[in-house]
């Protein structure tokens, strides 16, 4: 049997609203994945370093403050610098459609907006890692 999917769930930026991040982390764990939750106020550097150390296949970024356009591109840049482009990045939070499209053009695998189901997120991650 293949090893479980490893996911880093991270809360970047100054925002402390962690309800969504915690629910996703629990749901992924219940779906059989290994989940590392970083806790709050992680810089892009801290997140990418944690992803490297924990050898994860997926990074989930939870951002509700509207700072996604400042934070996510820096995470993507750092992943490129460290040759970690095989790590899938997904973003969840209050992200307007046009921003979501722009983030995807920069290499984000998926953006989950309010109302996205846990099942859809689990299914997406399984599919993306299997690719």
């Amino acid at each position, binding site marked *: 049997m293949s090893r479980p999917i490893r996911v880093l769930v991270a809360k970047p930026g*100054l925002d402390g609203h962690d309800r969504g991040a915690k629910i996703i982390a629990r*749901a992924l764990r219940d779906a059989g994945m290994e989940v590392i939750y970083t806790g709050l106020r992680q810089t892009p550097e801290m997140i990418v370093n944690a992803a490297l150390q924990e050898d994860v296949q997926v990074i989930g970024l939870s951002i509700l403050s509207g700072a996604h356009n400042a934070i996510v591109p820096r995470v993507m840049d750092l992943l490129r610098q460290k040759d970690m482009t095989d790590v899938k990045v997904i973003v969840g939070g209050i992200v307007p459609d046009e921003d979501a499209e722009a983030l995807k053009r920069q290499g984000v695998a998926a953006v989950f907006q309010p109302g996205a189901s846990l099942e859809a997120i689990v299914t997406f991650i399984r599919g993306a890692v299997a690719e």
Partner: protein
Amino acid sequence: MKTVERQFTTISGVPVEPAYGPEDLHDLDPARDLAAPGEFPYTRGIHRDMYRGKLWTMRQFSGFATPEETNRRYLYLLAQGQTGLSVAFDLPTLMGYDADHALSEGEVGKCGAPVSSLEDMEILFRGIPLGEVTVSMTINSPAAVVWAMYLAVAEQQGVDWQRVSGTLQNDILKEYIAQKEYIFPPPQSMRLVTDTIEFGMRHTPRFNPVSISGYHIREAGSTAVQELAFTLRDGIEYVDWALERGLQIDEFAPRLSFFFNAHSDFFEEIAKYRAARKIWAHVMKERYGARSERSMKLRFHAQTAGCSLTWQQPYNNVVRTALEAMAAVLGGAQSLHTNSLDEAYALPGEHAVTIALRTQQVLAYESGVANAVDPLGGSYFLEKLTLETEAAAMDYIRRIDAMGGMIPAIDAGFPQTEIAAASYRYQREVEAGERIIVGVNRFQSDNQADGQPIELLQIDEASGKHQEAKLAALRARRDNGSVNRALSALKRAAEGTENTMPFLLDAVRAYATLGEICDALRAVFGVYTETPRL
């Protein structure tokens, strides 16, 4: 589609019987448990004539982009008939960082108004007479600093502090529990809160120095009972600290105010507000020996549930908000914020916020619900639910007492993990179709007309640059010698036991920035980091 057996429970999971009657109220003694409106234990409301005497204050929480833009929105809202202001600050301000700090990048003006110095506060209230308008400020960890800025602006306007009226949220305990916007460790934060309570008692008799808040606890996913219990237990903690300081209960308790969520389960919410008043009245009288009725009367602000708003079919949010607001009114709220239909997307636009305000005006002037006090009192169902809510909340309060109070409970992660478990349980129920959310997991629509034709507020990315430029000019213009002297004096006060408020006032008057002041306090108090728990 799989069929799911219908569950008859409140949104918090409390079972609901098919019907209620007198047999459910054997434990209820109307004279003891309800009394008349305006009479102990105030279950039915704190005023005999309630909204006939004075309607609730319509207070829309607002702030975005820059102090200049936010000031324009305030003038607009006042012109539309709003009766009080409520300031939303951005995340750097809430976390005690200036707009030009590295961690503020991308966050300036996004979730509220940026205020880095007294200059920003002056701009925020330009043309608004602080002796006449009551202002609520949602700020917690750096609340004492921001309040000092506010009092300094009142001073500049020539308004006597004795006349200044409003509310500082300043509830740090629920930050550790739920919203997580903390800077300093709990004991040092509690010292700052106690400083503001003491200072307010002596200098601003019409200002509420703390708004003990369940709103954020509920938004983090708690049940109604958890919201109620943790909030009231936080209140007990503030009272204990103020008494420890040597203040007398009836000197400060009348100015403690509360802030609850108005969630979507109509009767459960009304029961929650009624139980809150009853429990607090008993706590004040029996636990603390308060004699003043004003100490025993729980006054509260309510805000409709942000987490109940949906991204799908956003116009449905107008209906949700109206129902939630009606529960708050039937529950006897003193002031109310109604959310806007577009808030699952962005901060509210002007059109959306106007509809939200109009919703309150329709409730107040057309619906008739404000004509009689506690019109649902005596309903078998509501009275039973009120008793159950009270009993369940008291059970939590006793458990936290047994842990040694709220700070040990927070250290142990108790309220945090209780909330996370409730929030996950609820999400699982939604996922399984046991909880129906219209437009999300039932009655979905592909019709674009149900979707997105709402005009969203865009925060200009130049807001951050504008704030940075103003700060640079301020730092160059001010007398840096007096800034440094004020900051050194503040540090010495923080190291000792003196009240920090006079030192904060001196620092802000010298135009020391929020970040500089918080750095001075960080150096003395240290910073708090939580252990990540799932």
